[in-house]
Protein backbone atom coordinates (compact mmCIF):
# COMPACT_ATOMS: atom_id res chain seq x y z
CA UNK A 1 0.00 0.00 0.00
CA UNK A 2 2.82 2.35 0.96
CA UNK A 3 4.54 1.59 -2.35
CA UNK A 4 1.34 2.36 -4.28
CA UNK A 5 0.96 5.68 -2.45
CA UNK A 6 4.57 6.65 -3.14
CA UNK A 7 4.22 5.73 -6.81
CA UNK A 8 1.02 7.80 -7.03
CA UNK A 9 2.75 10.75 -5.39
CA UNK A 10 5.69 10.48 -7.79
CA UNK A 11 3.34 10.47 -10.80
CA UNK A 12 1.42 13.44 -9.43
CA UNK A 13 4.60 15.45 -8.86
CA UNK A 14 5.97 14.58 -12.29
CA UNK A 15 2.70 15.53 -13.98
CA UNK A 16 2.13 18.83 -12.21
CA UNK A 17 3.48 21.91 -13.93
CA UNK A 18 5.79 24.29 -12.15
CA UNK A 19 3.90 27.24 -10.75
CA UNK A 20 6.43 29.95 -11.46
CA UNK A 21 7.14 31.41 -14.87
CA UNK A 22 10.28 29.37 -15.01
CA UNK A 23 13.28 29.99 -17.22
CA UNK A 24 14.99 27.05 -18.91
CA UNK A 25 18.13 28.93 -20.01
CA UNK A 26 20.28 31.56 -18.33
CA UNK A 27 21.34 33.92 -21.13
CA UNK A 28 18.56 33.19 -23.60
CA UNK A 29 15.16 34.56 -22.69
CA UNK A 30 11.80 32.97 -23.49
CA UNK A 31 8.60 34.79 -24.36
CA UNK A 32 6.64 33.91 -21.20
CA UNK A 33 5.47 36.69 -18.89
CA UNK A 34 4.04 36.43 -15.39
CA UNK A 35 0.28 36.46 -14.90
CA UNK A 36 -1.18 39.77 -13.70
CA UNK A 37 -0.39 40.33 -10.04
CA UNK A 38 2.06 37.43 -9.76
CA UNK A 39 5.43 38.40 -8.25
CA UNK A 40 8.73 36.60 -8.44
CA UNK A 41 12.13 37.19 -6.88
CA UNK A 42 15.16 36.17 -8.95
CA UNK A 43 18.69 36.24 -7.56
CA UNK A 44 21.24 36.08 -10.40
CA UNK A 45 24.87 35.00 -10.06
CA UNK A 46 27.33 35.21 -12.95
CA UNK A 47 30.97 34.18 -12.67
CA UNK A 48 33.34 35.20 -15.46
CA UNK A 49 36.83 33.82 -15.29
CA UNK A 50 40.10 34.17 -17.19
CA UNK A 51 41.50 36.87 -19.43
CA UNK A 52 45.02 37.51 -20.70
CA UNK A 53 46.10 38.15 -17.08
CA UNK A 54 44.39 36.83 -13.97
CA UNK A 55 40.78 38.00 -13.97
CA UNK A 56 37.65 36.98 -12.15
CA UNK A 57 34.38 38.79 -11.94
CA UNK A 58 31.27 37.96 -9.93
CA UNK A 59 28.11 39.78 -10.95
CA UNK A 60 25.19 39.62 -8.60
CA UNK A 61 21.72 40.85 -9.40
CA UNK A 62 18.51 40.75 -7.41
CA UNK A 63 15.45 40.99 -9.62
CA UNK A 64 11.85 41.55 -8.54
CA UNK A 65 9.34 40.73 -11.31
CA UNK A 66 5.68 41.67 -11.46
CA UNK A 67 3.06 40.60 -14.00
CA UNK A 68 1.01 43.62 -15.08
CA UNK A 69 -1.32 42.26 -17.76
CA UNK A 70 -1.70 38.99 -19.67
CA UNK A 71 1.06 40.19 -22.00
CA UNK A 72 3.19 42.68 -20.05
CA UNK A 73 5.55 42.32 -17.12
CA UNK A 74 8.06 44.61 -15.48
CA UNK A 75 11.11 44.05 -13.28
CA UNK A 76 13.38 46.02 -11.03
CA UNK A 77 17.01 45.03 -10.41
CA UNK A 78 19.78 45.89 -7.97
CA UNK A 79 23.19 45.18 -9.54
CA UNK A 80 26.54 44.62 -7.84
CA UNK A 81 29.87 43.20 -8.93
CA UNK A 82 33.21 42.09 -7.52
CA UNK A 83 36.25 42.13 -9.81
CA UNK A 84 39.66 40.65 -9.00
CA UNK A 85 42.34 41.29 -11.61
CA UNK A 86 46.08 41.61 -12.11
CA UNK A 87 47.51 44.94 -13.19
CA UNK A 88 50.88 46.72 -13.09
CA UNK A 89 50.37 47.38 -9.40
CA UNK A 90 49.67 43.72 -8.58
CA UNK A 91 46.44 41.84 -7.93
CA UNK A 92 43.53 43.93 -6.69
CA UNK A 93 39.90 43.34 -5.87
CA UNK A 94 36.99 45.75 -5.74
CA UNK A 95 33.29 45.45 -5.04
CA UNK A 96 30.77 48.04 -6.06
CA UNK A 97 27.05 48.62 -6.32
CA UNK A 98 26.74 49.16 -10.04
CA UNK A 99 23.27 50.60 -10.06
CA UNK A 100 19.68 49.72 -10.79
CA UNK A 101 17.78 48.44 -13.83
CA UNK A 102 14.22 48.61 -15.06
CA UNK A 103 13.02 45.88 -17.42
CA UNK A 104 9.87 45.70 -19.52
CA UNK A 105 8.76 42.65 -21.49
CA UNK A 106 5.82 42.46 -23.88
CA UNK A 107 4.67 39.02 -25.02
CA UNK A 108 3.40 38.95 -28.60
CA UNK A 109 2.71 35.25 -29.17
CA UNK A 110 2.91 31.92 -27.36
CA UNK A 111 5.42 29.12 -28.08
CA UNK A 112 2.77 26.39 -27.79
CA UNK A 113 -0.42 28.05 -29.00
CA UNK A 114 1.10 29.92 -31.95
CA UNK A 115 3.57 29.09 -34.70
CA UNK A 116 6.31 30.58 -32.55
CA UNK A 117 6.48 32.47 -29.29
CA UNK A 118 7.74 36.04 -29.47
CA UNK A 119 8.30 39.00 -27.18
CA UNK A 120 9.92 42.42 -27.13
CA UNK A 121 12.19 43.34 -24.25
CA UNK A 122 13.73 46.63 -23.11
CA UNK A 123 16.02 47.28 -20.14
CA UNK A 124 17.44 50.54 -18.86
CA UNK A 125 20.32 50.40 -16.36
CA UNK A 126 21.75 53.39 -14.54
CA UNK A 127 24.59 53.72 -12.06
CA UNK A 128 27.20 56.17 -10.81
CA UNK A 129 29.52 55.45 -13.74
CA UNK A 130 27.35 54.40 -16.66
CA UNK A 131 23.96 54.23 -18.29
CA UNK A 132 22.97 51.34 -20.52
CA UNK A 133 20.01 50.68 -22.79
CA UNK A 134 19.31 47.15 -24.03
CA UNK A 135 16.70 45.80 -26.42
CA UNK A 136 15.89 42.21 -27.36
CA UNK A 137 13.74 40.36 -29.84
CA UNK A 138 12.79 37.05 -28.24
CA UNK A 139 11.64 34.02 -30.23
CA UNK A 140 10.90 30.57 -28.85
CA UNK A 141 9.13 27.36 -29.75
CA UNK A 142 8.00 24.30 -27.85
CA UNK A 143 7.52 21.19 -29.99
CA UNK A 144 6.82 18.07 -27.99
CA UNK A 145 9.68 17.65 -25.53
CA UNK A 146 11.95 20.03 -27.42
CA UNK A 147 12.22 23.69 -26.44
CA UNK A 148 14.22 26.17 -28.51
CA UNK A 149 14.79 29.89 -28.15
CA UNK A 150 16.61 32.62 -30.05
CA UNK A 151 17.34 36.20 -28.93
CA UNK A 152 18.67 39.09 -30.98
CA UNK A 153 20.11 41.69 -28.63
CA UNK A 154 21.48 45.22 -29.04
CA UNK A 155 22.86 47.34 -26.22
CA UNK A 156 24.38 50.77 -25.99
CA UNK A 157 26.41 52.04 -23.07
CA UNK A 158 27.39 55.56 -22.03
CA UNK A 159 30.28 55.54 -19.54
CA UNK A 160 31.37 58.65 -17.64
CA UNK A 161 33.85 57.39 -15.09
CA UNK A 162 37.53 58.19 -15.84
CA UNK A 163 39.40 56.62 -17.52
CA UNK A 164 36.52 54.74 -19.17
CA UNK A 165 34.48 57.48 -20.76
CA UNK A 166 32.60 57.40 -24.00
CA UNK A 167 30.13 55.12 -25.69
CA UNK A 168 30.11 51.50 -26.74
CA UNK A 169 27.68 49.34 -28.67
CA UNK A 170 27.36 45.58 -28.31
CA UNK A 171 25.42 43.05 -30.35
CA UNK A 172 24.51 39.65 -29.04
CA UNK A 173 22.86 36.54 -30.42
CA UNK A 174 21.74 33.96 -27.88
CA UNK A 175 20.34 30.60 -28.87
CA UNK A 176 19.45 27.55 -26.83
CA UNK A 177 17.67 24.24 -27.08
CA UNK A 178 16.67 21.88 -24.31
CA UNK A 179 14.91 18.57 -23.94
CA UNK A 180 12.25 17.99 -21.28
CA UNK A 181 13.50 14.90 -19.42
CA UNK A 182 10.49 15.28 -17.10
CA UNK A 183 7.89 18.10 -17.00
CA UNK A 184 10.14 19.94 -14.52
CA UNK A 185 13.64 18.97 -15.64
CA UNK A 186 15.34 20.12 -18.84
CA UNK A 187 18.86 19.73 -20.21
CA UNK A 188 20.40 21.10 -23.36
CA UNK A 189 22.90 23.45 -24.94
CA UNK A 190 23.18 27.22 -24.89
CA UNK A 191 25.13 29.35 -27.35
CA UNK A 192 26.10 32.99 -26.94
CA UNK A 193 27.76 35.24 -29.48
CA UNK A 194 28.83 38.63 -28.09
CA UNK A 195 30.32 41.39 -30.22
CA UNK A 196 31.64 44.70 -28.90
CA UNK A 197 31.78 47.59 -31.37
CA UNK A 198 33.93 50.27 -29.75
CA UNK A 199 33.98 53.77 -31.19
CA UNK A 200 36.91 55.11 -33.18
CA UNK A 201 39.82 52.98 -34.32
CA UNK A 202 39.63 50.32 -31.64
CA UNK A 203 39.15 46.83 -33.09
CA UNK A 204 35.87 44.97 -32.96
CA UNK A 205 35.98 42.08 -30.52
CA UNK A 206 33.62 39.16 -30.80
CA UNK A 207 33.50 35.79 -29.09
CA UNK A 208 31.40 32.66 -29.29
CA UNK A 209 30.46 30.71 -26.16
CA UNK A 210 28.84 27.28 -26.11
CA UNK A 211 28.05 24.97 -23.23
CA UNK A 212 25.53 22.88 -21.32
CA UNK A 213 22.44 24.25 -19.62
CA UNK A 214 20.10 22.59 -17.13
CA UNK A 215 16.95 23.76 -15.37
CA UNK A 216 14.63 22.38 -12.76
CA UNK A 217 11.25 23.76 -11.73
CA UNK A 218 8.80 22.91 -8.99
CA UNK A 219 5.69 24.48 -7.56
CA UNK A 220 6.67 28.04 -6.66
CA UNK A 221 10.38 27.94 -7.50
CA UNK A 222 12.90 27.10 -10.20
CA UNK A 223 16.62 27.09 -10.86
CA UNK A 224 18.63 27.28 -14.10
CA UNK A 225 22.38 27.01 -14.66
CA UNK A 226 24.74 27.23 -17.63
CA UNK A 227 28.48 26.81 -18.06
CA UNK A 228 29.65 28.55 -21.22
CA UNK A 229 33.31 28.27 -22.19
CA UNK A 230 34.54 30.52 -24.97
CA UNK A 231 35.00 28.28 -28.00
CA UNK A 232 36.47 30.82 -30.40
CA UNK A 233 36.90 34.49 -31.21
CA UNK A 234 34.83 35.62 -34.16
CA UNK A 235 36.87 38.86 -34.38
CA UNK A 236 39.88 40.24 -32.52
CA UNK A 237 41.52 36.98 -31.38
CA UNK A 238 44.19 37.78 -28.82
CA UNK A 239 45.46 34.37 -27.69
CA UNK A 240 45.29 31.51 -30.14
CA UNK A 241 41.72 31.26 -31.33
CA UNK A 242 40.25 33.09 -28.30
CA UNK A 243 39.63 36.75 -27.49
CA UNK A 244 40.85 37.28 -23.94
CA UNK A 245 41.06 41.06 -24.10
CA UNK A 246 37.34 41.82 -24.00
CA UNK A 247 35.88 38.40 -23.16
CA UNK A 248 36.59 35.72 -20.59
CA UNK A 249 37.53 32.08 -20.98
CA UNK A 250 34.39 30.85 -19.27
CA UNK A 251 31.10 32.23 -18.02
CA UNK A 252 28.95 30.46 -15.44
CA UNK A 253 25.48 31.70 -14.62
CA UNK A 254 23.00 30.45 -12.04
CA UNK A 255 19.48 31.84 -11.71
CA UNK A 256 16.88 31.14 -9.03
CA UNK A 257 13.23 32.07 -9.19
CA UNK A 258 10.97 32.22 -6.18
CA UNK A 259 7.36 33.33 -6.03
CA UNK A 260 6.51 35.73 -3.25
Amino acid at each position, binding site marked *: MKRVLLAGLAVAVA*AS*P*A*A*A*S*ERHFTYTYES*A*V*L*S*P*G*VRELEPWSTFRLGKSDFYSRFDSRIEAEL*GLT*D*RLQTSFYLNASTVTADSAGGRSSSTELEGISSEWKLKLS*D*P*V*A*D*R*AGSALYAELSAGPSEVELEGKLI*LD*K*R*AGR*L*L*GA*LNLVAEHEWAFDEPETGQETALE*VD*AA*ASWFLTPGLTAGLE*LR*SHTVLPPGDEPTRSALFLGPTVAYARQGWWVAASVLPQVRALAGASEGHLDLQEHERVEVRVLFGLEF
Partner: protein
Amino acid sequence: MVVLAAALAAACTAALRHASPADVALVATQWPGTTVADLERGRRLYVRRCSGCHTLILPAAHPPDDWPALVDTMAEKARLRPGERADVVRFLVAVASDEAHRPQQ
Protein backbone atom coordinates in the same frame (compact mmCIF):
# COMPACT_ATOMS: atom_id res chain seq x y z
CA MET B 1 23.05 28.03 -35.03
CA VAL B 2 21.85 27.12 -38.54
CA VAL B 3 20.79 23.68 -37.33
CA LEU B 4 18.86 25.23 -34.45
CA ALA B 5 17.19 27.75 -36.75
CA ALA B 6 16.22 24.96 -39.16
CA ALA B 7 14.86 22.84 -36.33
CA LEU B 8 12.85 25.77 -35.01
CA ALA B 9 11.49 26.56 -38.47
CA ALA B 10 10.50 22.94 -39.00
CA ALA B 11 8.77 22.88 -35.64
CA CYS B 12 6.93 26.14 -36.15
CA THR B 13 3.43 24.82 -36.36
CA ALA B 14 0.85 25.76 -33.80
CA ALA B 15 0.65 22.79 -31.44
CA LEU B 16 -2.51 23.95 -29.67
CA ARG B 17 -5.12 23.71 -32.38
CA HIS B 18 -8.24 25.82 -32.69
CA ALA B 19 -11.72 24.54 -31.92
CA SER B 20 -13.88 23.06 -34.69
CA PRO B 21 -17.53 21.99 -35.15
CA ALA B 22 -16.39 18.42 -34.49
CA ASP B 23 -15.27 19.49 -31.02
CA VAL B 24 -18.68 21.05 -30.38
CA ALA B 25 -20.34 17.73 -31.21
CA LEU B 26 -18.08 15.92 -28.73
CA VAL B 27 -19.27 18.03 -25.80
CA ALA B 28 -22.86 18.62 -26.93
CA THR B 29 -24.24 16.08 -24.47
CA GLN B 30 -22.25 17.38 -21.53
CA TRP B 31 -22.77 21.08 -22.32
CA PRO B 32 -25.77 21.55 -24.65
CA GLY B 33 -25.74 24.74 -26.70
CA THR B 34 -21.96 25.05 -26.79
CA THR B 35 -20.68 26.81 -29.92
CA VAL B 36 -17.31 26.99 -31.66
CA ALA B 37 -17.10 30.60 -30.42
CA ASP B 38 -17.52 29.36 -26.81
CA LEU B 39 -14.67 26.89 -27.26
CA GLU B 40 -12.47 29.52 -28.91
CA ARG B 41 -13.11 31.84 -25.97
CA GLY B 42 -11.89 29.04 -23.70
CA ARG B 43 -8.79 28.58 -25.85
CA ARG B 44 -8.01 32.30 -25.69
CA LEU B 45 -8.38 32.33 -21.89
CA TYR B 46 -6.26 29.19 -21.57
CA VAL B 47 -3.44 30.73 -23.62
CA ARG B 48 -3.50 34.08 -21.85
CA ARG B 49 -4.09 33.10 -18.24
CA CYS B 50 -2.34 29.77 -17.93
CA SER B 51 0.88 30.48 -19.84
CA GLY B 52 1.80 33.07 -17.20
CA CYS B 53 2.56 30.31 -14.74
CA HIS B 54 3.72 27.38 -16.86
CA THR B 55 4.34 26.21 -20.39
CA LEU B 56 0.97 25.34 -21.85
CA ILE B 57 0.04 21.68 -21.57
CA LEU B 58 -1.57 20.16 -24.63
CA PRO B 59 -5.14 18.95 -23.96
CA ALA B 60 -4.28 15.41 -25.04
CA ALA B 61 -1.71 15.17 -22.21
CA HIS B 62 -4.54 14.26 -19.82
CA PRO B 63 -7.76 12.24 -20.16
CA PRO B 64 -10.79 14.51 -20.72
CA ASP B 65 -12.30 13.63 -17.36
CA ASP B 66 -9.18 14.80 -15.51
CA TRP B 67 -9.24 18.36 -16.84
CA PRO B 68 -12.00 19.88 -14.64
CA ALA B 69 -10.14 18.96 -11.44
CA LEU B 70 -6.79 20.06 -12.87
CA VAL B 71 -8.16 23.45 -13.84
CA ASP B 72 -9.79 23.79 -10.40
CA THR B 73 -6.41 23.45 -8.68
CA MET B 74 -5.06 26.46 -10.59
CA ALA B 75 -8.15 28.55 -11.36
CA GLU B 76 -7.74 30.90 -8.41
CA LYS B 77 -4.11 31.63 -9.18
CA ALA B 78 -4.94 32.21 -12.83
CA ARG B 79 -7.70 34.59 -11.70
CA LEU B 80 -10.33 32.71 -13.64
CA ARG B 81 -13.86 33.70 -12.72
CA PRO B 82 -16.41 30.83 -12.60
CA GLY B 83 -17.65 31.50 -16.14
CA GLU B 84 -14.11 31.75 -17.47
CA ARG B 85 -13.11 28.57 -15.68
CA ALA B 86 -16.04 26.80 -17.38
CA ASP B 87 -14.94 28.11 -20.80
CA VAL B 88 -11.38 26.83 -20.29
CA VAL B 89 -12.60 23.43 -19.10
CA ARG B 90 -14.98 23.06 -22.07
CA PHE B 91 -12.20 23.79 -24.54
CA LEU B 92 -9.72 21.41 -22.91
CA VAL B 93 -12.26 18.60 -22.52
CA ALA B 94 -13.45 18.99 -26.12
CA VAL B 95 -9.98 18.87 -27.68
CA ALA B 96 -8.81 16.12 -25.31
CA SER B 97 -11.93 14.08 -26.24
CA ASP B 98 -11.20 14.53 -29.94
CA GLU B 99 -7.62 13.33 -29.48
CA ALA B 100 -8.83 10.39 -27.37
CA HIS B 101 -11.25 9.32 -30.13
CA ARG B 102 -8.64 9.38 -32.88
CA PRO B 103 -7.32 5.98 -33.96
CA GLN B 104 -3.79 5.28 -32.76
CA GLN B 105 -1.17 5.53 -35.51
